[in-house]
Each structure stands twice: as C-alpha cells, then as structure tokens.
C-alpha cells in the first residue's frame, strides 16, 4: 500500500515538473512558465542545489552572479573578454566587427535601440552602445547560459535583466512569450552545463523572431527530429551546441565572422584538444567510406564544403525564415493612423506569418530553402557604416571572399538575405536608425517618421549625417552549417552535375555534366551526325542501285 502511495506521489511530482505550469500575470492573462528542459548527462561532481551560497532569495540577476563568483573566481574575467559580452570582434580582415559595430539588413543597428537589442546580451544593464559594457563582475549573466531550470529568461526590452516579480503586464521575454516572474533562487540552484535551450533562447530568435535571421537556427532545434538535424536529434545523438562549439575559458569555437571554411587538419592526433567546430574536426577531411563511391565523394572535399551536400535545404522542420526584408515600405498606416499588419505567408504548421508591418515594412519568408552557393575561404568583410557605398548597385552588407583557384576556398551554402534599407543619400553610407524606444519621440516603431528615426540613430551612433536619406537594396550572406540532414538525404550528384544544377550560377571552372553543348560537345555531335548522314546516304545509293539492277535483270 505504502509502495502504491509512493508511486502515485512520484507520478504527481513528475507531472508537476515536466509540464508547463500556468502562472497568471497581473492582467490576468496567463503566462506559461516553461518546464525544465531535458537533463543533460553530466560528470559534474557538484550539485548546486545543495550549496549554501545559492540557498537564498536573490533580488536581481547581478546578485546571483555575485554568488556564482564567490566560487568561480575567474569566470567573470573570462566571460567579459568573450564576444558574448563585448559584442566586439577584431576580425582577421582587420575590421572591428561584432554587434556593437556592424549594421545588418534585419533590425539594422544596436546603437539607439539598446535595451531591446541588449536583452540578449550575456550581461546586465548595457543600455548605451557608446560605452563598453559594464566591467563590474556582477554584470555578467551566468544564468542565461547555465540555468537548467528552464524558467530563467530575459525581458525583451530590459537590457539583459530577467522579468522579476511583479512582472509588468504585457511584458514579453526574448523569445516573444508573455513573461513570467523568474525564480532566481531556483535558477541559481539548477545550474549546469548549457543545453540547447540556453543558447537557443537567444540564437534561435535573432532578428526579432523564430528563425528570422539565420535560417538554420530555429526553435525546431530545441528537440529536432533526425531528419532536421542528425546531430541534435533528441531521439538520436542529442548533441548540445557545445558538442561542436567547444569552449575554452568561455570562448567558443566557431565564428560567423572568421569562418574555418576549409579545415584540412581533420581530427588531429589522438587525444589532441581541438578548438574547432568544423565538421572535419570529428569526421576527418576524407570522411566517406573506402569504397569506389566513397573515394569519389572524398575527391570532392577539396572544393566542396561538407555543408553543401549534407544540408540540402535550410529552415527545415516547420519554422520559416525571413528571406526578404524591405524597410522602405514601412510606415504605411491605417485609416485612423494606426499601424497595420498583413499575414500572407502560411507556414507549414498552418501559422500565418506577417508579410507587412507598419513598423518594419514588407517581408518574404521561406521554408526548406535551397541555399545560395559561393566559393568561400572563410573571410568575411562587412560594409561598415562609415564605408562609401554605391546606391545604384545592390550593396553587399557582408562580402564573402573566395575563388575557384584558391586552394583555401570551397563551395559553401549560404542563406541569401535580400534587404532594402535606409542609407545616407548625401554621404552614400549605410544609415543607423532608431527604431525601438517607446518613450522617445523619434523611434520609428512608435512615431513612423524615417527622417526623425535616422537622425536619432546617427546621433546615437556618433555618425556624420547629411540629413538626406534613401533606401538601397542589400544582400547579406549567412553561412549555413546547422541542420545537417541524415546521409540518406544528402544531395544527389545530379543536383549540381546537370545543365541547370544548383551551381549553375557559379562559373570559371569545369563542372562535369553541366554543359553537354560545349565546343567539343558540339563538334562531336556534328561529327556523329555527319557520319550517320554519310552512312544513310551511302545505304540509300546502294539500295537504289540494287533496285535498278533488279529491274534491268527482269527486262
């Protein structure tokens, strides 16, 4: 009997922890507190829920960090030097990149939109891009990466701070969900190595929504099927992000600014630590089995990145990505001056996605998108806001470098993001715009005035501004490397080796099967045709002769 009661109790307990618990926000609208994410197997020798330092109620995020740092004495220093905290990256090209420096074709720029954008900063309270993020140790956000309770989050517009009790009605989290009050004590006691949810809560929602930005990073990857991601499949290998993005002192392998596009080192020597997130660092540079087909496939690895064949399409699994963003049409309002929205894209799960917003302009979306392909050596240069642009051309927001003849370049897949965005038409430079700022009189999303919004953005960024603006077409390239499909789904040869194949836009090199009507091909066909005609002609004369002779014989 007591065994039965125990079992029932255990079941109730399990139900409680594994299902989302509805909490009620102050307006009465229910906000759903997420359930704990699936546990990650760990060899940790410490159970943080037993730590005295963590058995207290915390008043703020920084309070928790202080407790963390009382043992992890070097963690703040490590995190503060990482790109996750600095948003500043010295690229090998010599450019200063990172979110604090670049302008992209999504929400544009951080400067003047801080508290919204820095909601995903791995720290607290960074509300002015003109200054570096706080150097006080407690402003590092440990929980955003290490919380394993699943109920830690950050307020969408709170400069990195979590929503705490009492939560202002209508507050949203960084994933766009209605916010709940975070229990910091519970979070602090739950800490462990990051799960996919820790990384995904920011990285899956870049650009303002699920999969908007990357195309190969969406909420599908919280618990993907094998068909979507063979490595992260929750019923398969179940990799966390750090399985590939290995870290050392809170710095991670794998960068979109300096891509390791051609890793010829492979796995390295046995036991050798590799700070590499490349496919080759696990799979070797000649990964296909030693069969005739395998050898032939391995022959490709010098010129074709693994991703090109093994990620046949991106935005798989049911969440679309934005492929076109035209800011120039933003600001159109309804008859009563109210912002309008149109939802003309139906996602495969039936969800209607916005295709026009007064705040943001026109959009297009794509699911299972065929990538754009280019030779890529890993180096990316940005068109930084100070650079001259040619507005008569499509401006490349980031220029990918690479060429067929370059041994370091391989064909890579990219998400091509087509944009139309503001620029300073007097100085021919990309413009900063102040879009978010509910309390300002210049923010575009509340005031719908481009002139004001751009001027405020330029001022905030400390950039020179001519006072005139226009809109320019832009392209931005996002290397595709996630959502690796099972081997059986890899591209068939004919996808590229054909007359109208996926690489038909790439030229300057010989691609077997792509051009049967080359000069030699045409010459050969002409020769065969001439031979066939000659033979037919010869045969015809023979037949005629034979018939005539027969007639003669008859006579």
């Amino acid at each position: 009997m007591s065994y039965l009661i125990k079992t029932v109790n255990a079941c109730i307990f399990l139900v409680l922890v594994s299902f989302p618990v509805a909490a009620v926000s102050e307006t009465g609208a229910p906000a759903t507190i997420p359930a704990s994410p699936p546990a990650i197997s760990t060899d940790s020798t410490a159970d943080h829920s037993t730590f005295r330092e963590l058995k207290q109620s915390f008043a703020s995020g920084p309070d928790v960090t202080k407790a963390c740092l009382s043992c992890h004495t070097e963690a703040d220093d490590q995190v503060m030097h990482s790109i996750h905290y600095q948003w500043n990256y010295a690229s090998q090209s010599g450019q200063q990149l990172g979110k604090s420096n670049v302008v992209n074709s999504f929400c544009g720029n951080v400067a003047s939109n801080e508290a919204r954008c820095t909601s995903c900063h791995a720290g607290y309270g960074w509300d002015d891009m003109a200054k570096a993020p706080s150097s006080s140790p407690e402003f590092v956000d440990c929980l955003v990466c290490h919380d394993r309770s699943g109920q830690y989050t950050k307020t969408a517009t709170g400069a990195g701070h979590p929503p705490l009790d009492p939560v202002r009605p209508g507050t949203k989290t960084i994933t766009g969900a209605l916010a709940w009050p975070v229990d910091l004590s519970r979070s602090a006691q739950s800490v462990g190595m990051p799960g996919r949810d820790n990384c995904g809560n920011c990285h899956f929602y870049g650009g303002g929504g699920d999969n908007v930005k990357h195309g190969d990073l969406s909420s599908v990857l919280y618990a993907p099927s094998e068909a979507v991601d063979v490595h992260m499949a929750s019923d398969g290998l179940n990799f966390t992000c750090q399985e590939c993005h290995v870290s050392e002192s809170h710095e991670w392998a794998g960068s979109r600014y300096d891509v390791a596009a051609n890793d010829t080192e492979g796995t390295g020597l046995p036991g050798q630590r590799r700070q590499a997130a490349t496919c080759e660092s696990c799979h070797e540079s000649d990964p296909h089995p030693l069969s005739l087909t395998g050898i032939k496939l391995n022959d490709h690895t010098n010129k074709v990145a693994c991703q090109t064949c093994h990620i046949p399409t991106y935005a798989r699994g049911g969440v679309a990505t934005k492929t076109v963003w035209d800011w120039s049409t933003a600001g159109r309002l309804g008859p009563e001056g109210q912002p309008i929205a149109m939802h003309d894209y139906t996602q495969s799960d039936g969800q209607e996605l916005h295709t026009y917003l007064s705040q943001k302009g026109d959009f297009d979306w794509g699911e299972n998108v065929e990538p754009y392909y280019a030779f890529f050596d890993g180096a990316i240069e940005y068109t930084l806001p100070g650079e001259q642009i040619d507005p008569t051309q499509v401006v490349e927001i980031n220029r990918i470098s690479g060429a067929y003849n370059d041994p370091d370049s391989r064909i890579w897949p990219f998400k091509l993001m087509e944009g139309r965005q503001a620029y300073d038409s007097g100085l021919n430079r990309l413009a900063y715009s102040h879009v978010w700022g509910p309390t300002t009189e210049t923010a575009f999303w509340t005031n719908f005035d481009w002139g004001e919004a751009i001027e405020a953005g330029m001022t905030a960024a400390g950039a020179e501004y001519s006072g005139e603006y226009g809109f320019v077409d832009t392209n931005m390239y996002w290397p595709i490397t996630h959502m690796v499909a099972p081997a059986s789904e890899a591209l068939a040869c004919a996808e590229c080796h054909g007359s109208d194949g996926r690489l038909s836009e790439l030229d300057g090199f010989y691609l077997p099967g792509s051009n049967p009507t080359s000069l030699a091909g045409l010459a050969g066909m002409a020769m065969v045709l001439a031979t066939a005609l000659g033979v037919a002609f010869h045969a015809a004369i023979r037949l005629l002769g034979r018939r005539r002779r027969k007639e003669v014989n008859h006579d």
Partner: protein
Amino acid sequence: MTNRKVKIYPRFERIWHWSQMVLIVALLVTGMGLNGLHGLFPFKVAVMIHIIAALALLALWVFATFWLFTTGTWRQFIPRFEGLLKVARFYAFGIFKGEEHPYTKVLWRKHNPLQVIAYFGLKILVFPAIWSTGILYLTYNFWESAPDSGFWLEIIANLHLLAAYVILAFIIIHFYLLTVGHGFLAHVRPMITGFDEVELTSEQENYLTENEPWRLVDEGGEKDG
C-alpha cells in the same frame, strides 16, 4: 589456291572483341549521361559503371596488347597500301554497281587494307586518347595542385569527350559495313565461331592440315573452336 574455312579468330580475340564491345557501349551510354545528354541512370550509378567499365577495359587492353605482341598478331594491324585504292574505289563506286568486294582474306591478313587503317588509327590514336585523358580525368585530385589545373582539366575532359564521339562515329561505320558484301550474319559469324573463308595456298593448307588441323573445317561439316 583453295578457299577454305579456317579458324582465324582464336578464342581470346573473340572474347576481347565482344567484351570490348560491351564495355565500350556501357562507357558510351554512361559517359553520355555524365556529359549531361540524358538522365537514364542516376549520376552516381553512371559514375560507378563508367569507372568500373573503364578499369575493366584498361585491363582487357593490357591483356590484348600482350597477346598482340606475343602471338605476332600485331602484324595483322600494320597498314599496307597494297590494294587500298581498290577497296576505297569499291566503297565509293563499285558497291553501288553490285560489284564483288575486291579483297580476299588471306591467312596473314584477315582485314582489308581500309579496315586495317581504321583499326590502326583506333589503336594508335583514338584509344590512347580516350584512356590517357580518362586516367588523367579520374586522377585529377592527384595533380590538382599543379598550376592551372582547372584549365587543363577542362582541356582533358573535352579531349576525352571528343575521343568518345570519334569512337561513336567509328561504331556507326563499323556497324554499317557489316551490311556490305555477304551480309550482316556472314560478317558477325566469324567473330563468334572464329572461322572464316580464307584463300589458302597449298603450302598453307598442307601446313594447317598437318600441324593445326583443328583450325580447318572438314569438307563434311564445321568444327567448333
């Protein structure tokens, strides 16, 4: 001089001929697919058939070359101009008038002079062109670091393609000429049985009767080779 049925195509030569035919047809069909002319097979399958057939053909050619030189049969394939004009004239005019083929097979020359020139050209020019470019094409990854390798790959691939078209043209003519003279079967049969009508001198006939009687068909009936 007597006209006798003599075994002039030994077993190896016939196996060579027919397996070469099968392999070349396989290579032509898959090669055209790889070149983008048709999609009868998945590209991967076509690549595999093409490579395997090519390697098999190369092996066959190694054996055939060895055989040609050790048996002295290579002499059969050295062009001679004797009778060439007659044969050429026959194909250009005589054939239309119903004339007999001017060439009679003799023991040491089983092909007519025009045929010899065609086979010689094939062996000395076209086949080497196809296998040398094929091997270079297949082993591209071993020499890709050479300067301008991409340019040379394209040259090599196109030469390979041209050689393939020459072989296709050869096959058309080869096939058509089977209809000349005593007809299709009369031409194909010797390459199956090994026996063909050959003009023998009495010395040759005596020699064969004495020393290689299995090469002669008895007046009564055929002997299988």
